[in-house]
């Protein structure tokens, strides 16, 4: 409503970036595809016309590249939304979505699944459940040691403890896993990757994405109140405890489901919200949507790099960190006046 035009312009630019990365990502890979063919095939698919002049191209688009592209966008968006919400709630721009143990828990669940030789869907469900369980553990321990929850510091510390604990469990599993078969699987999975994402994974993820992101989107302006601390939120008529609870549940669903289908992907949930705020300011009315669009574009481009830079697949966490770190430093330098 204030600076309405600027806000619309920002959304338009972010959306264009996403659309370009979306189309561009179809063209990257060992099978050569022209933009004209791509648009032609996509248009025929959307309009329901039969397409039988190039089956190979169609297979590459819809079976090989499409699920991966959607997964990258979805996970990028999910982690950015979770990160933005957590940074608002904890009033700390250095917080990331794995703060309360969601990633470590999900990693442990998946590692356990690999150890017992489960199938992929079972491993994903294990990961999701353990991610949720880890955050629940954090929450319960915290309400036990700090029942009145005067500040969120106790929650952060408990989250660090629980994360460390689950990291240790992962290490135990790595130590005991068969180094010829199980161990490489676990290690590669933990480094994150979108190579094996299928449409059925996407169905599961889409449901979780909606469950986690819709409430946060609807209450995004309200999240601002938490950024001024619990007491000020209360004085503004916001029931801080229940809003915090909603944020934790939603962010955990988003993070755990992301880790469940793609392993642990670092950096996105930390830098994208931060980057977005440097561009559009702190108001979550704008930040949440912008970070969602930027996060989707960022992970999509990172995944393009992961699958095309060298002949074999690069784990995506390596890419996000290598692109992310210098990019972040540049942003901090350019916007130093508006920092902290």
């Amino acid at each position, binding site marked *: 409503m204030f600076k309405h035009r600027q806000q619309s312009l920002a959304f338009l630019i972010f959306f264009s970036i996403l659309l370009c990365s979306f189309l561009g990502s179809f063209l990257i890979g060992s099978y050569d595809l022209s933009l004209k063919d791509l648009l032609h095939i996509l248009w025929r698919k959307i309009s329901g016309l039969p397409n039988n002049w190039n089956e190979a191209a169609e297979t590459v688009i819809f079976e090989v590249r499409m699920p991966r592209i959607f997964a990258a966008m979805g996970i990028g968006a999910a982690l950015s939304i979770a990160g933005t919400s957590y940074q608002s709630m904890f009033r700390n*721009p250095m917080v990331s979505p794995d703060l309360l143990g969601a990633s470590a828990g999900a990693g442990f669940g998946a590692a356990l699944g690999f150890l017992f030789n489960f199938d992929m869907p079972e491993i994903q469900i294990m990961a999701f459940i353990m991610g949720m369980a880890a955050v629940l553990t954090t929450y319960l321990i915290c309400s036990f040691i700090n029942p009145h929850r005067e500040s969120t510091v106790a929650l952060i510390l408990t989250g660090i403890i629980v994360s460390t604990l689950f990291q240790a469990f992962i290490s135990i599993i790595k130590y005991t896993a068969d180094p010829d078969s199980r161990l490489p699987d676990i290690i590669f999975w933990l480094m994150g990757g979108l190579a094996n994402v299928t449409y059925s994974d996407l169905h599961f993820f889409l449901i979780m994405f909606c469950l986690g992101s819709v409430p946060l989107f609807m209450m995004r302006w309200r999240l601002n*109140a938490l950024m001024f601390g619990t007491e000020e939120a209360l*004085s503004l008529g916001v029931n801080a405890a229940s809003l915090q609870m909603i944020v934790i549940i939603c962010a955990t669903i988003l993070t755990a489901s992301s880790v469940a289908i793609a392993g642990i992907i670092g950096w996105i949930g930390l830098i994208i919200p931060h980057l977005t705020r440097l561009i559009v*300011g702190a108001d979550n009315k704008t930040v949440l949507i912008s970070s969602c669009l930027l996060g989707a574009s960022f992970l999509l481009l990172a995944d393009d790099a992961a699958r095309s830079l060298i002949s074999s697949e690069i784990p995506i966490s390596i890419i996000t960190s290598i692109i992310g770190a210098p990019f972040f430093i540049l942003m901090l330098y350019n916007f130093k006046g508006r920092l902290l």
Partner: protein
Amino acid sequence: MLGPNGVGKTTLLKTIMGFIKPCSGSVLLDNKDLSGLPRKYTARHIGYVPQVTCHSFSFSIEEVVIMGRLPHLNAFSQPGNKDMLIVEDVLKKLNIEHMRKRFFSNLSGGEQQIVMIARALVQEPRLLIMDEPTSNLDFGNQIRILKIIKQLSQNGISILFTTHFPDQAFLCDAKVILFYKNTRPDIGDAANILSPVNLKRAYGIDIDIITKKNADGSITKTCVPLFGV
């Protein structure tokens, strides 16, 4: 509210605001126990101006002030035109509409304090509670805030604030609650309560009260600590 450090002024404010539960007794709003009322309801009647702390996020002044509309909107809605007009009105009243686009974190302490008052006023409260509104401010800004406080109270808003300067009670011509370390507080008009004897009981130092006649015939009272040699 006046009294020595650690006597519980801020604790009382926080209890009134419902941030902490009273050990005994209750806080009533229109004869209803505050702890049983929804937050949204109390926030439409009581505005809170916190001590200014630094924030690590860059909100513009407008974005901070409009958050005062939170108690008037439901959980999923966002501020609309009507809310913006109220913000507009308050910004004008407090003379800060020219800096609406500036970042809150870049303001001086005095400006930040005025913005916090603006946010509370946008809640359209009957009662304003302020925790040491003049601490950390330079002398000029202290008086500026005090003028705003006096003006608001003349416009019909009740204001309860804590301060370390008894002079401010004289300047605002206010009712005073004077806290002592071990006995019950005294409540009454500044002129009656703030005597050298009571101030010595409260602060433990010798204080004289000087009356000064101004050019326009009004009277200003001020406290002077007796420093000795």
